[in-house]
């Protein structure tokens, strides 16, 4: 050992240019490079996954933001539409007649196939229009109604016209009729307002997110109204008042553990306590909000404690010095100064709560409900459970609608987080 490299001890006479040394240096540099590359590859993989996810959602989802409509002329024949009982008239016959007029010379069976171009909701749209304005009876009503899902897909190009007829949901005759409508300029694809203004439906072309919006709104309201005061109260007590003893320690450990309990377990708790014991309404935003409030409590408590801790002690001492009581110190001085941080934490907790799905499935918020709830006490769906319902539906139109609903959900999340960041930037104080 000593006779082969005596100079390496001192470094003075070391041959820095020897091949062995260069080899070693090259090896070291190569492993350095490898580590760097591995890091870069990992980061690009993570970002790539995110891009792939957003990209695939966007490419399938954007189609749901438009909906193919067809403009039809409905002759409101007084013989068919009963002016006395407008809603109770035979609207199917009226629609049949309207379709027959558009395609003269078709026999009954072919006509029935062609009628399938119109959405099932078209009949009700015509009916509701006439119910609202009975003076229309006797005239010809020109109205734009959605087409049914297979034809919406056909128009958007997701149905391959070259597949054998038996494997398609639309027959050749139907395609021909549809093309005739296109040629007549009756087909249009306006923005799909129904996605935001109507509630759930079995038919993709009629299904919308209104019920989910209202349900999520009520749920967040309940969650916020419970989690914020309770969270702030708990945090103030633990940070400012609690004596340092075993019970306070126990509470702290408890809060930390609660933050890591799987969400589905909270669903079991809600099922056993809120639904079974208290007998609250199954699937109501009230129960969902209570459950999510319990789940977001740890987040809010931890964020609140952090921002209470960030308020310098001099503030407290000054307030105490001029004779404020300990609670006055907290509620008049410390809490207002900590409020931006608390609101940031709360918004982030609410953003987490919005995306939570599993506990809501257990308490039955995945029911099929065709009307938006009017109070927090009746069954409802929320955005994530609506996504779950649609993802489970076999109709093709629901694939793009699911993606669209996810895009809407992500947009809301981004907006909430942006609000939180803005609050932090705007009001955060460095002491």
């Amino acid at each position, binding site marked *: 050992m000593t006779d082969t490299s005596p100079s390496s001890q001192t470094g003075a006479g070391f041959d820095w240019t020897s091949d062995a040394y260069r080899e070693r240096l090259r090896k070291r540099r190569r*492993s*350095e490079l490898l*580590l*760097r590359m*591995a*890091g*870069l590859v*990992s*980061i690009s993989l*993570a970002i790539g*996954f*995110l891009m792939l996810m957003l990209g*695939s*959602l966007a490419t399938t989802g954007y189609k749901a933001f438009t909906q193919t409509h067809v403009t039809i002329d409905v002759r409101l024949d007084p013989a068919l539409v009963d002016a006395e009982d407008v809603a109770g008239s035979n609207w199917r016959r009226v629609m049949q007649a309207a379709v027959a007029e558009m395609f003269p010379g078709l026999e009954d069976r072919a006509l029935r196939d062609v009628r399938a171009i119109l959405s099932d909701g078209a009949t009700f749209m015509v009916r509701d229009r006439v119910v609202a304005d009975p003076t229309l009876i006797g005239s010809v009503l020109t109205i734009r109604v959605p087409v049914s899902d297979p034809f919406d897909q056909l128009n958007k190009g997701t149905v391959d016209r070259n597949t054998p007829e038996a494997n398609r949901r639309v027959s050749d005759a139907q395609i021909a009729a549809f093309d005739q409508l296109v040629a007549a300029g009756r087909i249009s694809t306006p923005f799909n307002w129904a996605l935001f203004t109507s509630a759930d439906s079995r038919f993709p072309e009629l299904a919308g997110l209104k019920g989910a919006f209202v349900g999520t709104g009520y749920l967040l309201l309940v969650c916020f109204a419970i989690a914020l*005061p309770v*969270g702030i*109260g*708990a945090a103030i*007590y*633990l940070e400012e*008042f*609690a004596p340092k003893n075993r019970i306070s320690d*126990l*509470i702290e450990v*408890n*809060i*930390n*553990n*609660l933050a*890591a*309990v*799987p*969400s*589905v*377990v909270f*669903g*079991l*708790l809600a*099922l*056993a*306590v809120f*639904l079974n014991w208290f007998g609250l309404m*199954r699937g109501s935003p009230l129960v969902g909000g209570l459950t999510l409030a*319990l789940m977001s409590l740890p987040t809010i*408590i931890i964020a609140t404690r952090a921002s209470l801790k960030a308020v310098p002690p001099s503030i407290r001492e000054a307030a105490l010095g001029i004779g404020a009581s300990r*609670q006055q110190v907290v509620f008049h001085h410390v809490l207002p100064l900590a409020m931006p941080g608390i609101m940031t934490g709360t918004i982030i907790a609410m953003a*987490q709560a919005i*995306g*939570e799905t*599993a506990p809501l*499935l*257990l308490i039955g918020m995945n029911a099929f409900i065709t009307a938006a709830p009017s109070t927090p006490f009746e069954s409802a769906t929320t955005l*994530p459970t609506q*996504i*779950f319902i649609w*993802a489970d539906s076999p109709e093709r139109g629901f694939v793009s609608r699911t*993606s669209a609903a*996810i895009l809407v*959900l992500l947009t809301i*999340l981004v907006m909430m987080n942006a609000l939180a960041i803005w609050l932090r930037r705007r009001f955060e104080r460095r002491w």
Partner: protein
Amino acid sequence: MTTLAFLILFAAVVIGYFLNRHAAAQIRAHGTRLHSLVGFHGLYSALLIAVSGIVVILLWLMLQGSVIDRSVMASLPPGVLDGLDKGQTALILTEIKSIARGQVFGTPEEWKLAAAELLKERTAAARLAMVVIVALMSIALMVFARTRVSAEFRARHGVERIIYGLMIFCSTVAIFTTIGIVLSLVFESIKFFRMVPIQEFLFGLRWEPQIAIRADQVAGQGAFGVLPVLLGSVVIMMIALVVAVPIGLFAAIYLNEFASPRTRNIVKPVLEILAGVPTIVYGFFAILIIAPFLRSTGASLGLDVAPNTALAAGVCMAIMLIPFISSFTDDALSAVPRALSDGSLALGATRGETMMKVLFPAAIPGIVGGILLAVSRAIGETMIVVMAAGIIAKLTINPLDTVTTVTVQIVTLLIGDTEFDNPKTLAAFALGMLLFVVTLFINILALRIVRKYRELYD
């Protein structure tokens, strides 16, 4: 009626506040110095009424249901409940309740109709009683608070005591939640283990939670052996970790040691976005992109890939875990004192050598803690596996096969009907208990490791 009770309470709170405030102001107007500001006198009355009123209403609502149920069942004509077990009795109660709601199916017996009528009467009476009691109590407290207004009365102390109590209550909510979770899981699990022996649950190799409609049906027994389900959870968790841990570690190492501040400022928020995406989105991504991709790749390689593979769910879960692991690793690496890396660099080590031979080993406890937390998240994760994994329990470790997980079973068993008297629904609580215990154990272990390591350098 409940709304009415709350309205009365609200009115009483407002009136009480202004009554006391006014009375205190009167005393001050006569030139006497008050101990507390007039606002505290008002608040004292308001808080007293509000807190006791809300407590009474909530307790009433909680207990009213079961008390009325019991009294109605006790009033049934003698003999009709003879020879029925608990489940059948509960069924009769459900029937009476639905009759009381106006949903009559067929022609129920006379005594059931009478019981439904009684149930309706007693519920209405109970609601009315609640409103009356709340109103009387509010007035009594209002009068009480009013009589206490005087120059010497320490209203502020009273108010602060009440608020102090409220804050203590708030901080015990977390404890009550934990107790609630444990109790509800334990109670329902005990019911389950009365029907299915615990050793069969823990060591059984078959999981077929179907319930026989007729006693003589084939496979009518149903099997509740948890091992295949647990194995499924472990398989998916392992796949997720195998993918996520290297990616997360290397990403954190790069960000911590090599990346320029600019790259860091771009990449970290992107990873945070990945962490903030709701898991249902990952689930849909799995069935939209990953599963079809695996299938077509498998088909081109001549492999038989199931539609709901463990691999698709695992990969998707890995994407979810990457930001989690990388941020934990980043924190652990940053917590290593600068002196260590400075010393290593000064000795001539490259940045990579410093990282791999000095920083990383020093940070290992923190990283292990983070990975353990990731394990518990992977086991407890629900939506990804509900959407991407299967529901049939198979005793297999083939990642291309369909497996099911504990969380998937909980959700599938409880979606739809939730009658609490058959082993199918109760099994979900036993699974929940298992899940809770396992994740709690891992979390405590992880937190302990992380904390111990922190103390090392602090």
